[in-house]
């Protein structure tokens, strides 16, 4: 048995993925789809913690509400989707 091959990842020209880390991807996703900036009852906009934003996302997508960046949440974030934000603000 030979030694397993270590994968080598390449940034392809024009590729927008740019090898983002899961945390970077999550931050950008939460912001892009309206989970980070929430309007309160008085109409003021404020930031929420990543954990709260994740819980809200998990609730919206019908996932287990852990508040953590677990595997099912990451999988959901990588799925093809509509670009309209999920959270009204």
């Amino acid at each position, binding site marked *: 048995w030979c030694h*397993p091959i*270590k994968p080598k990842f390449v940034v392809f*020209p024009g590729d*927008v993925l740019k090898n983002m880390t899961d945390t970077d991807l999550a931050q950008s996703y939460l912001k892009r*789809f309206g989970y980070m900036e929430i309007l309160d009852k008085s109409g003021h906009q404020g930031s929420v913690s990543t954990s709260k934003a994740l819980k809200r996302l998990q609730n*919206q997508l019908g996932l287990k509400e852990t508040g953590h960046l677990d595997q099912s949440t990451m999988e959901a974030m990588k799925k093809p989707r*509509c*670009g*309209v934000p999920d959270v009204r603000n």
Partner: protein
Amino acid sequence: YQTFEGDLKWDHNDVTYRILNYSPDLDASIIDDAFARAFNVWSDVTPLTFTRLYDGTADIMISFGKKNHGDPYPFDGKDGLLAHAYPPGEGIQGDAHFDDDEYWTLGSGPAIKTYYGNADGAMCHFPFQFEGKSYSTCTSEGRDDGLPWCATTADYGKDKKYGFCPSELLFTYDGNSDGAACVFPFVFEGKTYTSCTTDGRNDEYRWCATTASFDQDKKYGFCPNRDTAVIGGNSEGDPCHFPFTFLGKTYSSCTSEGRSDGKLWCATTSSYDKDNKWGFCPDKGYSLFLVAAHEFGHALGLEHSNIQDALMYPMYKYIADFSLNQDDIDGIQYLYGPKTGPKPTPPKPSTTTSSPATKPTKQTPKTTPSSRSTTTAPVYTPVEPSVDPCSVDKFDLITEIQGELHFFKDGYYWKSVSGANEDRKGPFLVSERWPNLPTKLDTAFEDPLTNKVYFFTGTQFWVFTGQDAMGPRRIEKLGLPDSLKKVEGALQRGKAKVLLFSGEEYWRLDLKTQQIDKGYPRHIDMTFGGVPMDAHDVFLYNGHYYFCRDVYYWRMTSRRQVDRVGYVYELLNCP
């Protein structure tokens, strides 16, 4: 369901729309039809009517674009964001934009309408036979003018039905040339071009001149995508070049090497290392109809729903036989009310005394007893398909049983045979062949020595000898840790060992002792480099190890080298 703040809605029921441009992926008539059907989804349940305008300003302006396409929300290349739309209102409000870096189809692979030929514009039939060879794409074989063509039935030799496939040699779209074909070579700003180009444009659309000199005549059109063309990358519209070299290695098929996202790509010249020209390989694509129906929901005033089966759920999912979820109906009727007027009635069969209408009866196949065998193998009859296996994006489990690959999903299974140029069989009911198993299964394997089949779900497993089952038993009985939630994959090693996979670890089960060997678990990465750590299914097939994640598989040789990445539906012999 949710509506936009302030319940934004159109103040009139006769809503207008206009299609501003077309995608090179589909014929204009297919795009027109997809949009019309998408509007019908909403007009079927509300008093809304939709009228198409061909000029001027419509309520809903529809366009295709890439990346920065003129509003503050750029698209992101292939996959990821597919489209977006604005809530009702003036200006950009109400408009719907579709990302043209996606491969737009009707959701189940290339939808290629033919031109000319003798098939009256019928769609290509893939695969088709021509002179003893099977074709799954358009081809220019058998022609000396280079025009790609396809058969519109399964066998060209038998039916002789064919048409030409979209290509720049046949026609262009949009532009100012009324669909004329490209003229090669043509001159643009003093330079000679022998193929379609994106030069001179900042929207990445490929174009050509329809006379010998654009500089002189200013006549141009956009090039339709050939079905063999790559999607996105930096060579949109060019075909893959096989073989090609990448990091010094030669590839003769699409690969996911070099990518962390598992997407299949190819180089469009003989050397990626030298030219850096590449694109994604065509896949099933996204259903323009389904995405448009969703976007038009926004354009009518609906926000995203958190009901997973609702059309307004934000994630894309292909559904062959689409119907609106009650949540979508409730949402749109909250804004516009229910449809008024009489409901359409289904046509009734005409009956005459000489030809009475009869109910169709179920026909029982006649069986002929075999004279060669005194024992009869059980025959499992396919049931009505509940789901198209070719559109399943994640099977519960895949495993080889008696030389046939079995694909399980929600209590059904399908079978396919490697190398057999035939459709898959099924679906069959799992309960008919392996009684009393739960609907949801995690993994299974066949003991190569005894032909017993082991099934795992959650923390339980069953062992079947024919239809006789032993179990359920708890997986701890095998020596697996009681913290283990499920077994997700199995690889037979020799005749008495099986590797059981869960998460990022695996254990080796001794089938004779029915116990896990010492020294386990081991980390997958230590032994199986280059496969995804989050594979939800692992199985052995034809001497190769397969690791599946969603619709992709990573195939590994017995020397533990990944030699292919492909789509699971290839294993199912899907068209």
